[in-house]
């Protein structure tokens, strides 16, 4: 009973990105010693599913919950109850509203991601043209924030026209169909930007099925291991992602620091994150981990076996 139990709650089990994050969490646990990681989450990306998971974690009296939320508001009351019962709650990746967590760890800064995803597309469109965004579910906070940021920087890229934003709900088949719809509705489309690992893969598939490799560039955020095929086939020139292992690692480190009292979550606080250095909280108790990293044909082979 001396072990500290930290629960890593993800949007849904089985998604490569979160599996990698769990790996990072285990790494942190090994480094810290005396820490047990409970990797859990619902099987589909619903808020109700996450609430049931949170309830059972409260019942087990875990020491800390680190959550990537399916809905920033719906899970908040449950998390508040967790905090009332003395559980440390942090969110990471996809945030919870301010009442529902002590701090939030963004994988990267939102403006940076917004800029990156547009830039990835623009780099391969010297003459400008139409781009469209294929997002995850319409309720995913992080996606929405990035898209908003991307729209803000759009004026910096003259000639790039954002024609539509559609939602694939992080379901491959739905994303695939949405991508098809985009190609049908916008025959001149030059790029599909999918800031989600499921969406980018599905778009890639849709573009190669439509024989539009070379005409339409699929880009956005994806995992090197999953995207290797797309890069080889040429459907994707380049894409970006931060390292999910690092993200899981950092979230665990932060949760541990807060739960042991080694650090407090307050604006301006600096929290150590082991091998990742440290993060600094802003006035909404939010911190950013690191910059996204871009992958293309030149470096994909090096990373595809890692995550």
């Amino acid at each position: 009973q001396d072990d500290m139990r930290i629960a890593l709650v993800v949007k849904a089990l089985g998604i490569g990105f979160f599996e990698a994050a769990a790996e990072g969490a285990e790494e942190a646990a090994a480094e810290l010693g005396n820490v047990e990681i409970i990797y859990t989450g619902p099987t589909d990306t619903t808020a109700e599913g996450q609430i049931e998971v949170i309830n059972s974690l409260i019942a087990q009296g875990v020491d800390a919950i680190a959550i990537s939320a399916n809905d920033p508001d719906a899970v908040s009351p449950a998390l508040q109850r967790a905090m009332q019962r003395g559980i440390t709650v942090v969110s990471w990746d996809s945030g919870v509203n301010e009442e529902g967590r002590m701090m939030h760890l963004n994988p990267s800064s939102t403006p940076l991601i917004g800029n990156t995803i547009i830039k990835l597309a623009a780099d391969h469109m010297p003459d400008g043209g139409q781009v469209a965004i294929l997002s995850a579910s319409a309720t995913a906070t992080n996606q929405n924030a990035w898209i908003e940021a991307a729209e803000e920087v759009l004026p910096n890229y003259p000639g790039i026209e954002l024609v539509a934003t559609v939602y694939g709900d992080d379901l491959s088949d739905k994303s695939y169909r949405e991508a098809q719809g985009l190609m049908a509705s916008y025959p001149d489309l030059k790029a599909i930007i999918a800031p989600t690992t499921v969406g980018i893969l599905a778009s890639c598939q849709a573009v190669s099925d439509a024989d539009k490799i070379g005409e339409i560039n699929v880009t956005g955020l994806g995992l090197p291991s999953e995207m290797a095929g797309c890069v080889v086939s040429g459907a994707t020139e380049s894409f970006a992602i931060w390292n999910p292992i690092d993200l899981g690692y950092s979230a665990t480190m932060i949760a541990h620091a807060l739960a042991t009292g080694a650090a407090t979550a307050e604006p301006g606080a600096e929290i150590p994150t082991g091998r990742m250095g440290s993060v600094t909280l802003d006035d909404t108790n939010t911190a950013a981990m690191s910059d996204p990293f871009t992958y293309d044909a030149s470096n994909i082979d090096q990373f595809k076996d890692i995550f």
Partner: protein
Amino acid sequence: MTDTTRFIPDRLQSPLERRLKSWETLLLAVAVSIFIVNSFTSPYFLNAWNLSDMTFNFTEKAMIAFAMALLIIAGEIDLSVASIIALASTAMGAAVQIGIGTPGLVLIGLGVGLICGAFNGFLVTKLGLPSIVVTIGTMSLFRGISYIILGDQAYRGYPSDFSFFGQGYVFWVISFEFVLFAIIALIYFVILHNTNFGRAVYAIGNNPVGAEFSGIRVARVKFILFLLTGLMSGVAAVCLTSRLASTRPSIAFGWELEIVTMVVLGGVNILGGSGTIPGVVIAAFVMGLVTFGLGLLNVPGIVMSIVIGLLLIGVIALPRLWEKWKS
């Protein structure tokens, strides 16, 4: 064959004997065994607060399940209940935006539930359409309206006293939802088992034509049952919205099948004609105990659903297998 009037006893079997041999007894045994197993497998199980938390896993669904049980006993079904929750919740959310207070919100939630129930009831009883298809249609329609209204947005900002319905406690660990659940269970128990209306429900479920020919207003009774189911969905919408403190169109997605499962597990014949409220109450506890017990062991929800699926088929199949094996 004699021609003298013979005495016919009221009953052959005493009510107690009948009860002991019933489905409810079997189910209760299952529930108790799960309870015992749970207390051995997890050290956190036997804790008042945790047990109280457990009830949140089923109270809202069970409220609807009671009304659904009556509907299924009468030979109909309503698959749109979860979508009614979504629509009622959306309406409440919209009302919050124009500054309506808690009492108004509750009325709106219940009102939308009633309207949706009336719509289903109208299609089934006035137009004579099969309820299983009609409510698959309204299931898409009601939730679809929520999507049209909300799209990718969410309503939040519910007044703080509104949170009582889904998060409040009445006495120590006894939550408001649980009390409401108990009261509703009692009301439905009385309606189904102790009133003329309940008797009509059984009669209709056993033979709608015969009931009509016996002077029962079949269409009216069915319409009321759809209204009640809509109303209970409204009540559940109030509780759930309060518990989540926000509304999205995807709220309560997939609940309809869990509710039907609860009703069937409770011994209600899916083809109509038989079933009891105590059965449904015990089934609610069984499902709550299974999901919570496995949750404490951090078993993923999908694995719990395997257990529920096996229970559903198992509790119906085993007695039949037993009979076959015996003969």
